[in-house]
């Protein structure tokens, strides 16, 4: 595991800031909201070693499969997943967002819900495969189109806690150190390299 965390990610991406994120007007877009350190800090990998770039690529692919546009924003004001997802949903033209923290915890949010009650929550990051992230993107796009897809199936691993809880805490604490309080979310362009 330590080796997996130490080696560089298999896929890389360049994230370029394009100024403050605007509230979208296109009803056919889903915002991908990423946490303060996601993609360019913390070894650019999730808790169990998935490249951040690969995760974003799967989110985009899942959304675009449904002929919906993906737009990436970074939320600076909080490392809390619910806050990131809720901010993303408010910026989204469809009102739907997917959100992810550096450790890989993810959700689908909608702007009319209360912040702590997202549409779908994926709390066990180590159980999420790349195909799950694609499915999350696809479901978000379906919600954006007004469909009611079945929730993305999840694995419940009762032994995830002993293996991952402490490491997940360190991820969250480290990510919190990148938070810029009071700073607005920014629009990002992404370019993938392999």
């Amino acid at each position, binding site marked *: 595991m330590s080796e997996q965390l130490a080696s560089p990610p298999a896929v890389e991406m360049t994230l370029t800031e394009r100024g403050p994120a605007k509230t979208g007007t296109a009803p056919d877009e889903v915002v991908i909201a990423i946490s303060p350190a996601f993609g360019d800090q913390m070894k650019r990998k999730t808790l169990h070693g998935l490249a951040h770039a690969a995760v974003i690529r799967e989110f985009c692919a899942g959304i675009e499969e449904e002929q919906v546009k993906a737009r990436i924003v970074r939320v600076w004001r909080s490392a809390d997943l619910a806050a990131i997802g809720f901010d993303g949903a408010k910026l989204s033209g469809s009102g739907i967002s997917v959100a992810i923290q550096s450790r890989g915890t993810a959700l689908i949010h909608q702007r009319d819900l209360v912040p702590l009650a997202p549409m779908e929550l994926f709390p066990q990051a180590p159980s999420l495969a790349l195909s799950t992230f694609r499915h999350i993107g696809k479901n978000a796009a379906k919600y954006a189109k007004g469909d009611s897809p079945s929730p993305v199936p999840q694995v419940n691993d*009762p*032994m995830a*806690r*002993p293996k991952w*809880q*402490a*490491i997940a*805490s*360190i991820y*969250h604490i480290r990510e919190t150190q990148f938070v810029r309080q009071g700073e607005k979310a920014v629009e990002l362009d992404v370019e993938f390299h392999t």
Partner: protein
Amino acid sequence: MLDKTDNTTQSTAGDQPATKRHKRFEALEKRDVNQDGFVKEWPEVGLIAMGSPNDPAPAIRIENGEIVGMDGVDRADFDLVDEFVARTAIDASVAEQMMAMDATEIARKIVDINVSRAEVQKIFTGLTPAKIAAVMDEMNVVEMMMGLQKMRARRTPSTQGHVTNVKDNPVLMAADAAEAGLYDYSEIETTVGMIRYAPFNALALLVGGQTGRGGIISQDAVEEAMELQLGLRGLTTYAETVSVYGTEDAFRDGDDTPWSKALLASAYASRGIKMRFTSGTGAEVQMASAQGKSMLYLEIKCVMLSKGVGVQGLQNGSISCIGVPASVPGGIRAVLAENLVTTCLDLEVASGNDQSFSHSPFRRTARTLMQMLPGTDLIFSGYATVPNYDDMFAGSNFDCDDNDDYLMISRDLKVDGGIVPVSESDAIAARNKAARALQAVFEELGLPRITDEEIEAATYAHGSKDMPDRDTVQDTKAATKMMEDGITGMDVVKALGRRGFTDVASNVLEMQKQRVSGDYLHTSAILSRDFKTIAAVNDLNDYQGPGTGYRLDGERWQKISDVRQALGPEDI
């Protein structure tokens, strides 16, 4: 790092040079313990079990009978938690006297069999959080266990079980609740996979639990408003999942304050429902809100806050954050210390052991012995009475497949672990009766049908994999309607009575009456099979060394001794 040309490298199948490995280390890496996650201390953010360099030094300042400074912070700078603790949990009239005592001296009084429980408690009414942390830091785990044996409130130890399943199947849940009753759990707790099943889960535990043994109390850990409503309706008979935290930030993350939690506690008390708070080491650091303080120091604030609110008890022992203290040095010692602090502040302790915490059977057992050997009010909170794959609290430290191991440890050491052996035929009979009783209640209340096939499956099931699927859409609709229709515990009594389950009806009725008498609101209250309250009032722990306190003997020791596995001369 070794050079690639070094003669200690060897070629592997893929012709990649690799470091030559010591085969014992390779074998060790495959062991269960190395599936667990371990991390180094990081005191700056509070990833440290006890004694963070950022923990304050103990101090108190009192002016005109009021606390104006605590542990180096002036009252004007108190956060919400400090304010609440200073106002409600420390007796300013004795604080200066108690704070003047040396931490080592207080620690010795906890261990000393010649010092009474009452005397230690009197001292703790005048201590600040940092002082209590300093006292704990003087003690090793054996001394802490000595302390727990003396300081727990109820003389008779007991335990709690989880009764859940991944399908939220109510028939299986009722059968499992009945079996838990036979094992003599005092409390059973459920929660949901699907939130809309919450009313059915409460109903299954009420009917199944009272079939297994009269007086077992049951709760349904769900969102706070629903949990309260189920209690008010008499569908549950206690509550425990009301969480408190040691920093203001962590409280705010959950949209709460100590005052909002106190209000909720009062709502339960006003309707005669037993309730306790929940907290535990590691929660604040996991939420990145520990402010560099040690896990135990913050947890001590939670215990004091619970005392200040006036609830009768607290569930702690890290609980759902156990992976955090368990990963750092001395973490399991800190978890024991938080249980001990709870008892020193005269609260009931439901002492954890309730979450999957290690892949290693050795670590799992060692962790549980800390509470099992001295005995606590509820050693587990709770033990998975079902297979861990069905434990919807994300798995417990022990599950139903560990029952014989746990009972043998109890028999080996002559220690009461809170449960007794059960015969297979008794278990089958109780499971079947509970499933049939629930079938009758469902029919009487117009809820979706429970088939005979389901009853047969539930009677013999190991877990939900052995159950046929139910129509979950129909079930959850009916559960919602059941709440809209205002169904209460009394409707359940009537339904059972009409269908001839007179003994179960009578037990459910007795549970409704408990809420009127309110006797089981006393600290550490549980109910006997004939609904007599056993609490710190009429069964106060009087341990003061050999010859005093609780002793496992008589009929109960016979039950634990006479296991089905043991051979007698006549068998050979």
